[in-house]
């Protein structure tokens, strides 16, 4: 039985994620204005009934741009997690299941990835592939491999000791079958937690890269890029910086609380 | 019982949950005399450890002593504030735990952990403290005490660690030691060694002890008197001999029946059907009623008053009805 107040963070997390997801879905069909439409007459107008979040230096509606930007945030987050999870799964599962020299080798590789500060690794990778959404996704995906690999490896080593796994090994079941039928289903919740946290981490890193001008490039909309463009107007149009950054924060917060909440409720069950 | 060192009188302890308070100890009363070892037995979840923690004043955060007094040498422990408690713990009453592997701080040397008691309660010089520590370590059978003084817990085996815990409990020369299943986690040969240690301590140190165990064999070898607890209540109490030979309460009987014993070799070991009711499942009646073969209607409504029967006292409707005078 879970006490009520304890689930408040999870509740907030879910609400944020759902709200932003719905906004993202809506943006495919409707935005208050065309996010790219330029109105030189209404440049940098402050928030009003007409433009809830104000307009940017091209007179474009900031709210509409933020809504469109959520598509990029979700796309990069989702794709990066998929890449990280897939590769991390293969590495982690092989390392954890077979152990021995393969484990040693794979984990050295993972360690080498960790020798670079995260954003540095991303910067390196992005510059190799030319800045853009695709290379940002690949870089962020590679960045999140170590987390997944380690969690999956650890859980597999832990569950391998259990009788039901040992029994299937003894029965001579194939390695793949054991990994997919017996081991993975048991570690879905740590993977889910890691995915949620790595999603928010990717969104955060994407905004950082795009802010540096190395991430997503126009015409693809990106919140980080918007902040880069908003920086010169920080004092003359503070709403531009404030609203955009706030949305990034809320999205990241949402997924962080979600991941944390899932973990907490799992701990409570255990 | 005027020479009692510790007298617990009508103590109630309850747990606070989000949906209300649940009593965990009900009307617990017993006493421990000078130089007496009182055992407490019962299945897990019966409130043995909670009783110990109540005496030590280290109840969990969500538990509270709602009624009763704990007289210890003319002081009512139940009314002490935290600071007064700290002066008593380790110095007048000390405690030994079940888990020797985890009850030591892994990052501090053995010597320092034992010595800490002296640091807190005495004003001895460093050298004196070390000398005393080493002598106590020797007295609990720790070999090469000088060397061990500087080692860390992970260097030691389980049995050795339990000796360290015992040394910690002894070094303050307390009047009362509470041992909570001190041998349970150890393997059999080590168990025997530790029990021997307790026996010799009892013989040499003249100390009083509350000894919690679910193992009658252990109780028999160490204790003078024994209390049987079930679901937060004392159901029977008496000398070890009396209870073992002539258990009255159906629960005590069942417990004794389930002792593994070489005379029953080859037979199925007896186990009591059912489980101890959880905190929230306990009513006003006898908690054992649901598992009792002699259950009567009244059992579910009212918990019986204890009845004295020679060397022992029993709380069971069987006996209050049997005409023994109340």
């Amino acid at each position, binding site marked *: 039985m879970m006490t009520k107040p304890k689930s408040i963070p999870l509740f907030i997390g879910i609400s944020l994620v759902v709200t932003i997801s719905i906004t993202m879905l809506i943006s495919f069909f409707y935005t208050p204005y065309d996010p*790219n*439409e*330029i109105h*030189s007459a209404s*440049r940098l107008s402050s928030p009003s009934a007409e433009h809830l979040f104000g307009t940017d*230096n*091209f*007179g474009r509606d900031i709210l509409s741009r933020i809504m469109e930007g959520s598509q990029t945030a979700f796309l990069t987050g989702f794709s990066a997690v998929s890449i990280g999870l897939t590769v991390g799964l293969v590495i982690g599962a092989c390392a954890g299941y077979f152990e021995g020299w393969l484990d040693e080798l794979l984990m050295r590789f993972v360690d080498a990835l960790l020798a670079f500060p995260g954003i540095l690794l991303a910067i390196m990778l992005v*510059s190799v592939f*030319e*800045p*853009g959404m695709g290379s940002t996704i690949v870089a962020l995906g590679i960045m999140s491999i170590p987390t997944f690999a380690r969690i999956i490896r650890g859980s597999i080593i832990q569950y391998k000791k259990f009788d039901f796994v040992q029994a299937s090994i003894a029965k001579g079941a194939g390695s793949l079958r054991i990994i997919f039928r017996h081991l993975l289903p048991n570690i879905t919740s740590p993977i889910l937690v890691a995915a949620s946290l790595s999603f928010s981490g990717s969104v955060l890193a994407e905004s950082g890269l795009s802010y*540096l*001008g*190395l991430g997503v*490039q*126009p*015409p693809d909309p990106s919140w980080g890029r918007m902040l*880069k*463009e*908003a*920086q*010169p*107007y*920080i*004092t*003359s149009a503070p709403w531009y910086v404030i609203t955009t950054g706030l949305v990034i924060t809320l999205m990241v917060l949402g997924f962080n609380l979600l991941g944390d909440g899932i973990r907490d409720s799992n701990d409570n069950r255990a | 019982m005027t020479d009692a060192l510790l007298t617990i009188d009508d103590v109630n302890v309850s747990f606070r949950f989000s949906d209300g308070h649940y009593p965990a100890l009900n009307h617990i009363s017993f006493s421990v005399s000078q130089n007496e070892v009182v055992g407490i037995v019962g299945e897990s979840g019966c409130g043995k450890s909670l009783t110990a923690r109540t005496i030590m004043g280290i109840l969990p955060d969500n538990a509270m002593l709602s009624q009763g007094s704990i007289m210890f040498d003319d002081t009512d422990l139940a009314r002490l504030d935290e600071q007064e408690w700290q002066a008593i713990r380790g110095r007048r009453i000390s405690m030994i735990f079940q888990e020797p592997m985890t009850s030591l701080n892994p990052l501090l040397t053995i010597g320092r952990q034992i010595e800490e008691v002296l640091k807190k309660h005495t004003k001895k010089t460093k050298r004196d403290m070390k000398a005393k520590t080493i002598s106590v370590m020797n007295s609990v059978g720790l070999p090469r005490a000088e060397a061990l003084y500087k080692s860390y817990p992970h260097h030691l085996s389980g049995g050795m660690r339990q000796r360290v815990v015992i040394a910690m409990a002894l070094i303050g020369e307390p009047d009362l030691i509470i041992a909570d299943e001190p041998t349970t986690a150890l393997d059999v040969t080590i168990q025997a060694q530790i029990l021997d240690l307790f026996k010799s301590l009892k013989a040499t140190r003249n100390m009083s002890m509350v000894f919690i165990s679910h193992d009658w064999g252990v109780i028999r070898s160490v204790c003078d008197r024994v209390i049987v607890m079930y679901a937060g209540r004392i159901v029977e109490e008496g000398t070890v001999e009396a209870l073992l030979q002539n258990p009255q309460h159906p629960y005590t009987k069942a417990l004794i029946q389930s002792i593994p014993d070489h005379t029953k070799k080859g037979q199925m070991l007896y186990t009591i059907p059912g489980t101890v009711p959880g905190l929230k499942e306990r009513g006003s009646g006898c908690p054992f009623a649901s598992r009792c073969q002699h259950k009567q209607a009244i059992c579910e409504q009212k918990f019986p008053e204890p009845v004295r029967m020679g060397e022992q006292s029993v709380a069971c409707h069987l006996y209050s009805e049997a005409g023994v005078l109340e």
Partner: protein
Amino acid sequence: MKLNLATRTLTALFVFILLTACSNTDGQNHEANGSNSTNGQENNHSSAEVSGGVVRIAMSTEIDNLDPYVSAATDTMSMMDNVFDGLLDTDESGQLVPAIAEDYDISDDGLQYTFRLKDNVVFHDGSELTAEDVVYSYEKLAGLNGGEPISSQFEIIEKIETPSDFEVIIHLKERSSAFLAANIRPILPADYDNHSEKPIGAGPFKFESYVVGQELKLKRNDDYYDVDKIPFLDEVQFKIMPDPESSILAMQAGEIDIIPGISAQGLLQLGDQVKTVSGPQNMVQIMALNNSVEPLNQKEVRQAINLAVDKDMIIETVSDGDGIKLGSNFSPAMDFYYEAGLEDVYATNIAEAKKLMKAAGYEDGFELELTVPSDYQFHVDTAQVIVEQLKEIDIDVDLKLIEFSSWLENVYTDEQYEATIIGFTGKLDPYEILRRYVTDYKRNFINFEHAQYDERIDQALKATNPTEMARMYKDAQSILTEEAASVFIMDPYRTIAMTNGLEGMKMYPIQKFNLEDVHYTE
């Protein structure tokens, strides 16, 4: 090459100045009175001039090299221009005036240049500047000393003679009206080559210290040869501040006295705390159209694009209104050569544009890939506006951002592009500017081919009198417009902000911070 990633708007234009290897070039603008300033030139000497003081100038780009023959960055040259002097110098109107040279003659056949040097010029290390130093410098520039030529403008030098210590005669291999302007290049002391660490020149300021990425300090040269032009200021500090916003805040806090390129937004913030000098900077921002790819090889299509792009709107949104609309690859900053009126040839007219599109067979529009160097926010912003504008005539612009390094390779060198946006920085010589469209010029990455145009440029180069030369260059500009070679967008203004109390900053058709006259008033 300094490509900071901090956001910038207008200051981006300082960065494209770096796109050119060297900006100080030859020219013959005897009459050019180019530096017209919209806000009025700071020529007011009525208040009392105060000698002394320190001026701190915010620079958006880093110094690439203190050695003037190695440095390629215009900003660096602008700063170091105060340390070095050449035989000639340029005034605010782009006219060449004697500096180290007392005067000069050009022979009738145009092949022999004779310079007589001032006899009181000393370098900052105290040594006297003589003809020997000029020969050393020019041989180095021309590659006559065995090394590679440093400047192609000097490659036409055949030999240099020194009849006396203060006279130099330069013989050219061929006639070129473009050579004279090359003589503004710094004269360096002979056989001293540690300029990267401790530059020595003969200019009005002396090098004091330099901390990489942070600050360049210059001190007044009290022994400057031109006594009338000994600076007022004791010291000049160039502070490297890549982020325009931070330089504005610094100016607000009184930590900076001059910002050489400031945005309208920035000015708004500073309010009446500062005064400004502003005007066109002789830069040409274009949307280059690759004339050799379908369908941009059709004149009608290029014209339609020109008609659809609303340059006024771009100037308004991207440059905060601070820019002058262009019609050809030439800025009015060089008035003498400038063909006026071309900027209105393609006044925005969507109906007309659609008609042309239809005539070209693209009634339903087409897809156009616009490749923009991502390092320049200014161009990226321009591109975003153009994308929207071209939607009007159903051209679906696919915006593609690449790093400048890749841009140089793919777009500029390999010509693998359809359209791009770039800025060409100011040159003193119209030939340097207009040469880009000559058919066989290597860097004609627009692939413009027009025989008549080539002819006009050739005629200009061989012209004997300035008026005729100017006429040829003006003709050439008209051809570019008529052919709609590309979309010539604007010359963004350079606006210099100065704290109140400072005076004497002048604007030049090339980027130049002449600090000789800058002074505090009481």
